[in-house]
């Protein structure tokens, strides 16, 4: 039975990977010409093109990283198409009836409203959704507060000075292989600007960002919080998303100026591949924020999807008294591989960071926490507290912890703790004795295990994340 | 010996002591009682000079020197001893090594010769015996893995070894059973020599059945609300501290 389900899932996604060559889709391959083409399609100014070309030069000289605890078939970067225009209406499913029933079942379980299901499944209705009044109201409210929230392609044209000033300052083009690739070929993403002293009147969600669908492959996000401002940003959603591209290499840059606070929450649930690990998204993400004086950046992530996750949302605590936080739940099952964690770079005095990482491994998956805490020579009185807990479900999976701690300040305090446990027979017995089946019991225990992270998520997200774990764990218990 | 005048003290910017006055003469035993939060432990910490316990006004004279001018260790060397309510555990540093070091710096401050290893060991053994601690406690890390009662007895043992002028006992009776209470009290009583003074901070009257105070002070809201003889402690035992609120109301 479960095999049939898996087959169904696999079939659905297989279809997704075949793309017809349309007139405005570039043939596979990466070259200067391709980058010029992308830039031209986006009607970008010259400086942007130059910036991309320089990134491409850098990328060509860089080796693909191999230090993470993941294994995957080498990616042929010349076989990928780096630009495809949004699908025309006629190529999309015309209604939910054409969408895989298994996907719909998941949506139902997550309680996703019909029109959202249509959007997520890529049904040809976005024009309709576009006009939904909630979005209009949303935009009006933001404008009133002076908050800019738009596709980055639009920002490059409308706010070139802001983009020029900050793009690539937190994640330089040469930072790493995937960041360089992204810098050369990114097609879209979000741009957020919160003016001085403004508290964003609502949580900003990619969900409301009206831009082309299917731009997820090389996303680029830049968030600037001016002095004393606050913004909470939500990325992704709990529902499994259709995506045509196997390789994802996003870059997210956060700039929190003096006294500003940015809260960035992610739920990632891309296609994880079939039970043998075939297909599935490769998710190589570079996320980093810089904190000036008294600023705070908080990363919260719930990672359940992708065949391979390579992701280390980080904070550079440059300003005195700045604060960095990282709360993470990473769940792997089947043949999924995750190597994720954070870097907290303490430069300023009295900087503080907290890292709470919860890894759950099931099936034949591999789940690694990799983190760096660095106390610079001037980070007087800096503090870090790290807690990494792993939960194993079954004896075929792996759970790993690789924390790097580097300190060169005698008054800085670093504390790191890691534990490994399993869902104990006693816990299971108790739940069963109280009438729960094994699956419900495990889901309950896992949710308890993740509680510290879930409480950091915006409320509605937290509820969904709990449900998401429950669904993800189905079939994991013997 | 100790003269506290109009002492105001802050803890984390909060005003805890609000004009406290206290005179302790040589050989006297003063009991400080009062409800939770009255500032009893704060008084002990301010006297010993703990970081974060800041005297904002008033002065404290200790045998002719201004106590507030001294560092923590200088106060100890001048003869002030605080028996902690919650003594900290220090693994790796043996009790013996710690006490030997401490006894000798204090002796040096008094202008006395340091004790030889043998002399010290003899004294330490006698002191341990007096407070009923097995000798192997001398070799163990300071307070490491000690029970609550053992920690309190270890404090009294240190007091005996250091021969201070003024002993402040911060709730040395809390969490003790009757036997342990008696050991602590006997330890204190053995040190009463007509010159050495004591401040006994306690919430209950119980300890005062074993250590007879000369004076009893009731501390409330950072001040001495009432002073008297031993009979005051008995009164508190019967009536509790509720009357303080009434008294406070009247005063306002």
């Amino acid at each position, binding site marked *: 039975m479960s095999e049939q389900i898996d087959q169904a899932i696999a079939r659905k996604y297989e279809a997704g990977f075949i793309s017809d060559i349309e007139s405005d889709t570039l043939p596979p391959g990466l070259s200067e010409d391709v980058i010029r083409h992308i830039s031209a399609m986006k009607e970008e100014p010259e400086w942007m093109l130059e910036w991309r070309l320089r990134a491409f030069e850098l990328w060509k000289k860089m080796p693909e990283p191999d230090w993470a605890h993941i294994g995957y078939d080498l990616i042929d970067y010349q076989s990928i198409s780096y630009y495809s225009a949004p699908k025309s209406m006629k190529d999309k499913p015309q209604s939910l009836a054409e969408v895989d029933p298994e996907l719909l079942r998941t949506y139902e379980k997550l309680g996703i409203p019909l029109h959202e299901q249509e959007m997520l499944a890529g049904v040809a209705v976005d024009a309709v959704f576009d006009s939904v009044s909630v979005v209009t109201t949303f935009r009006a409210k933001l404008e009133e507060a002076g908050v800019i929230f738009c596709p980055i392609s639009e920002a490059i044209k409308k706010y070139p000075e802001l983009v020029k000033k900050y793009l690539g300052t937190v994640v330089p083009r040469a930072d790493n292989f995937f960041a360089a690739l992204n810098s050369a070929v990114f097609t879209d993403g979000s741009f957020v600007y919160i003016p001085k002293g403004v508290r964003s009147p609502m949580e900003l969600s990619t969900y409301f960002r009206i831009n082309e669908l299917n731009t997820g492959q090389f996303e680029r996000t830049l968030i600037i919080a001016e002095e004393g401002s606050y913004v909470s940003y939500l990325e992704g959603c709990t529902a499994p998303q259709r995506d045509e591209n196997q390789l994802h290499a996003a870059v997210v840059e956060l700039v929190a100026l003096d006294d500003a606070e940015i809260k960035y929450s992610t739920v990632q649930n891309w296609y994880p591949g079939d039970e043998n690990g075939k297909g599935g998204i490769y998710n190589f993400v570079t996320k980093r924020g810089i904190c000036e004086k008294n600023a705070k950046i908080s990363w919260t992530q719930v990672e359940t999807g992708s065949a391979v996750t390579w992701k280390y949302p980080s904070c550079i605590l440059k300003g005195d008294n700045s604060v960095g936080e990282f709360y993470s739940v990473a769940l792997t099952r089947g043949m999924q591989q995750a190597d994720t964690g954070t870097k907290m770079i303490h430069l300023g005095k009295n900087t503080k960071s907290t890292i709470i990482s919860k890894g759950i491994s099931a099936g034949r998956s591999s789940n690694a926490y990799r983190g760096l805490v660095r106390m610079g020579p001037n980070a007087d009185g800096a503090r870090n507290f790290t807690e990494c807990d792993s939960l194993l479900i079954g004896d*075929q999976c792996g759970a790993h912890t690789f924390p790097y701690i580097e300190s060169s300040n005698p008054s800085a305090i670093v504390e790191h703790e890691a534990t490994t446990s399993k869902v104990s027979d006693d816990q299971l017995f108790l739940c069963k004795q109280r009438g729960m089946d094994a699956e419900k019991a495990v889901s309950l225990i896992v949710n308890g295990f993740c509680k510290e992270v879930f409480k950091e998520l915006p409320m509605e997200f937290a509820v969904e994340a709990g449900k998401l774990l429950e669904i993800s764990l189905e079939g994991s218990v013997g | 010996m100790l003269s506290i005048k109009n002492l105001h003290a802050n803890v984390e910017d909060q005003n805890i002591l609000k004009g406290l006055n206290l005179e302790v003469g040589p050989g006297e035993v003063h009991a400080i009682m009062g409800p939770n939060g009255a500032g009893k432990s704060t008084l002990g910490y301010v006297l010993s000079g703990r970081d974060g316990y800041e005297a904002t006004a008033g002065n404290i004279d200790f045998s002719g020197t201004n106590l507030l001018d001294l560092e923590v260790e200088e106060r100890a060397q001048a003869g002030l001893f605080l028996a902690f309510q919650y003594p900290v555990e*220090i693994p790796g540093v043996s009790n013996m090594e*710690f006490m030997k070091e401490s006894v000798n710096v204090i002796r040096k401050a008094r202008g006395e010769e340091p004790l030889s290893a043998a002399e010290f060991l003899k004294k330490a053994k006698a002191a341990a015996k007096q407070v009923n601690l097995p000798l192997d406690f001398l070799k163990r890390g300071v307070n490491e893995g000690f029970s609550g009662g053992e920690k309190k007895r270890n404090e009294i043992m240190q007091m005996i070894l250091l021969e201070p002028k003024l002993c402040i006992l911060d709730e040395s009776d809390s969490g003790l059973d009757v036997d342990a209470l008696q050991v602590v009290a006997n330890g204190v009583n053995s040190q009463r020599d007509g010159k050495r003074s004591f401040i006994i901070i306690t919430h209950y009257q119980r300890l005062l059945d074993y250590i007879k105070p000369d004076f009893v002070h009731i501390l409330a809201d950072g001040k001495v609300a009432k002073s008297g003889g031993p009979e005051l402690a008995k009164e508190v035992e019967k009536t509790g501290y509720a009357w303080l609120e009434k008294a406070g109301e009247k005063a306002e």
Partner: protein
Amino acid sequence: MSQSWLAQAIARASAVNDWLQPQRKESLALLATQEWPGRRTEAWRYTSLHAFDKLALTSASGDVKQHDAPAVAGLNSLDIVLVDGELQTAIEALQLPNGVRVSSFSNADAQAQEVAHAVFAKVKPAKHLFGLLNDTLAQQGIIIDIAAGAEVQQPIRIVNYVTAGVESHNRILVRLGAGAKAAIIEHGANLSGSDAAAFNTAFAEYLIGDKAQLEHYRLALHGGKVIHIGGSHFQLHNEARLNSTLVGYGSQISRIDADIHHAGEHAFAKFNNIYLLAPSEHFDLHSSIEHAVPNGTTEQNARGIVGDKAVAVFNGRIHIHRYAQKTLAELNNRNLLLTRGARVNTKPELEIYADDVQCAHGATVAEINEEALYYLRSRGLSASQAKVMLSFGFIQELITQMPNHSLADWLLPILHERFVAMEAE
């Protein structure tokens, strides 16, 4: 680059020819495939080997001066002394306790050779580059065979002296038969003073049989300009017990790899590490605890104090293999930096492939506990006195856990003196 140093070492190794030739050949073949470690080599991430670029050393001359083993009151050990890898002790003349056979590579009889073949490069993983070098270059080594059931009271100490300007490689191979009990001390020291360079590799392998018990010490007390690279490697069989203490100074480069491999079930290992780094010293400890079978237990405690401009590197890995269920493994690393110029890089690692296990690690880099400092000061100790007492107490705790009290009593004042000198800098 120092790849050339490696090539030249390989050329030298090719000339070595003795009864260990079959094993040496295998290591030589592996060595030829190795790259010289650089910054990107994970195992050498924080330890640079640039010093090899201009390393000009000779081999031992053969007429090195006789040196006595360091005197340790009450230790009463059976001492074997090596100076720059050359044996100084007449092994044939040693009064050996019952059940103990001691041989050297140069006088090994058939039985000793059999022990060596069973242990040499069998316990030490092939991943250690300098271990492979030692396989091929160590011309002298000590082979110790403890008969099954023998309970040896007298500790056996192998003293490894290094002197200025000399390159040396030495090896220890130990087999404990079933139910045997022994205590072995690897005692490294520097005769060349603080300013002269020397390069020494010292690797030891211990095969600990069923129910056998090994009490082990490695004292890597070189300091100065010595480049000391070595390892102690243990394989534990059913119900074997290991209690090992490693005490290290830093030096120009001091790098030790320790592997504890649980090959039999219900084995127990306790592994304490202490490092005390004087100004500008470098110390790097990589440990790897391999639980390959179920029901093993390991407790590791590593503590270090790092002086000015010194660098401490600690990499402690716990690897629980698939099916190694019911494993208990804990690792704790604590560090104290004395000054702004001191540095520590620590990386405790867990790699776990079995679900029914209890594994944890912790690492801290911290200042002295404020409350404890206040407590000591309230008893009259000055702030600096209290700091010395607390900092030293931090490592003293592990020294006093050493089962051999004579050795602990000898070490404490030596370490204390070193610490006080560090503090004074």
